[in-house]
């Protein structure tokens, strides 16, 4: 009952100084907007990571060359060889599906068209590891790897890149990779991007062909991919890869390894660092704005208490308790902050939308985040309103009534 009246009085006070109130809450507005945008970015990134992990394969481990150490001194990048890939395939008792990757950006030509394209030398297992599907034709097989055959499977976009429509006309045609003739045997389904990997724009050829006919005979792989049937085998697979690679590279127990084993989530983490950095920046802005905003609220509340000293005196003379006065000013500060909080949520929502449109960053404004932001602005109001409200409550009735 009494509380309701106090709320009405506080609301009237905010409304009586609407312009001042809105200006005062600007800090809170910016702070809350930053919080909302930050969380929206984070949520969006999280969502994208999950999608990409799925696209990249949840149960794929990537082996990359690491630093070769000798007595604590780096001796440059270590190398991954085809023998490593063979060892991983043959000695893991069928736990792992393995494919090497030897890749290079090279000129691809067809009729009058040509394009600078990523050429991927892989094994047939590669298509299974990444669950690639075919639109037309077929993948190459183990026999064609052994025979170093000049056959190519094109990513979904390649037909268009090479100027052929409809794409199936390309199957059976001859293209040139770095001037060497290849027969197109298949065209893949659309896959979409996963982090920096764009399978739709790649051309896949047997690893052996890549090594001996296209890339100058060097036995030097970019990566080895290994997949398990289910994601819960990843830990075992990790240990197994570590064991086999240590033996292949003759690394003693206790010595540093010269390779890295990563899962998809690890790889994506680096990729998402940019949005993360931006999120941290926003967190900083949010913290500072909320602090400045809170101090602004405190300042305006002190002004309000001073301006209304007489009123406080009158209310006290008529029987308002300290608690009633305190509540009145706390609720007023709370209102100011909630007002700012709500404008901030709207602004944050707008900013998130804009980021999605302009920078193509995925965002998601979660209802929980909105509730939390409003709750947080309320907390700021209570915290920074406390001192002014206490000052009002502790005013001496006589002094307050005499105040000019």
């Amino acid at each position, binding site marked *: 009952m009494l509380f309701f*009246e106090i709320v009405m009085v506080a609301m009237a006070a905010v409304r009586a100084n609407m312009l001042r109130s809105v200006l005062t809450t600007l800090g809170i507005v910016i702070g809350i907007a930053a919080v909302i945008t930050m969380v929206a970015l984070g949520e969006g990134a999280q969502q994208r990571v999950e999608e990409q992990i799925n696209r990249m394969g949840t149960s794929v481990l990537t082996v990359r060359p690491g630093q070769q150490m000798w007595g604590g001194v780096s001796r440059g990048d270590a190398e991954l060889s085809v023998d490593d890939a063979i060892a991983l395939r043959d000695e893991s008792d069928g736990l792992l599906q393995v494919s090497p990757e030897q890749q290079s950006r090279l000129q691809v030509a067809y009729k009058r068209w040509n394009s600078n394209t990523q050429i991927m030398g892989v094994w047939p297992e590669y298509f299974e590891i990444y669950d690639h599907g075919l639109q037309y034709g077929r993948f190459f097989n183990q026999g064609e790897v052994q025979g170093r055959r000049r056959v190519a499977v094109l990513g979904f976009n390649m037909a268009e890149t090479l100027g052929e429509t409809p794409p199936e006309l390309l199957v059976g045609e001859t293209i040139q990779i770095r001037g060497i003739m290849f027969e197109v045997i298949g065209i893949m389904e659309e896959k979409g991007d996963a982090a920096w990997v764009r399978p739709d724009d790649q051309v896949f050829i047997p690893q052996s062909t890549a090594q001996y006919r296209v890339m100058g005979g060097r036995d030097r792989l970019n990566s080895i991919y290994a997949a398990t049937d289910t994601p819960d085998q990843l830990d075992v697979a990790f240990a197994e890869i570590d064991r086999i690679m240590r033996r292949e590279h003759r690394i003693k127990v206790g010595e540093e390894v010269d390779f890295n084993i990563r899962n998809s989530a690890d790889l994506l983490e680096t990729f998402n660092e940019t949005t993360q950095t931006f999120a941290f920046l926003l967190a900083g802005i949010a913290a500072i704005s909320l602090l400045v905003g809170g101090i602004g609220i405190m300042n305006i509340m002190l002004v309000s208490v001073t301006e209304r000293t007489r009123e406080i005196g009158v209310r006290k*003379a*008529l029987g308002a308790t300290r*608690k009633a006065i305190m509540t009145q000013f706390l609720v007023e500060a709370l209102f100011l902050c909630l007002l700012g909080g709500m404008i901030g949520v709207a602004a944050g929502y707008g900013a998130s939308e804009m980021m999605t449109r302009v920078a193509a960053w995925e965002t998601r404004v979660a209802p929980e985040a909105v509730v939390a932001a409003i709750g947080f602005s309320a907390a700021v109001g209570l915290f920074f309103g406390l001192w002014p409200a206490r000052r009002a409550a502790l005013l001496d009735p006589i002094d307050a009534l005499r105040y000019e």
Partner: protein
Amino acid sequence: MSDIIRTEGLEKHYHLGAETVRACDGVDLLISQGEFVAIMGPSGSGKSTLMNMIGCLDTPTGGQYWLNGTLVSEFSEDELARVRNREIGFVFQTFNLLPRATALHNVELPLIYAGISSKERRRRASEKLELVGLGDRMGHKPPEMSGGQRQRVAIARALVNEPALLLADEPTGNLDSVTSEDVMRQFEELNEQGQTIVLVTHEHDIAGHAQRQVHLKDGLLEKDFLNPVEPTG
């Protein structure tokens, strides 16, 4: 008749550096239910100080004060707020109305702090506004009213909680003489209906409306006497 106000050696001393201002320096005062008392004295004699202590707006630095038989000089701030709300109606020289609120809302204020429901508040507040002759001005705000009207709103506000004690500190100090007479007649009427009133003034005409005069000088009681009874009829 029972005592509404009883003070013994009531003191208010202010310490300003080495100097001590004895605004009230040991006042013994008895006021009974239904009395109409005027407190007189020159400026600075301690009238307001005494009045504020009687009205529980201020706390004494010494002595004791019983209101309606309760020793309120020992009360805490919140207990005093309750006493001000339930037992006392205060009228000020400067009206002390909330300028942005309507007359009705101003009169409702004490009832809000008494926790009365809005319907009942409205009923009681308009009743008191009718009583002081402002039934047709309830929606007006103080700046739209004359001094006399404002003071009558303040009187309605002071009466709205049916207080045991109506206090007024120079209520006519900001009014012209005609309006002052109106306001004083209002007080007389209220007193005739049994309302105990204590009023501070330094004007003899105003004090003449009361039944009894208490004179202060330098924070001390100087004279205390009954006004000659006016011939009735």
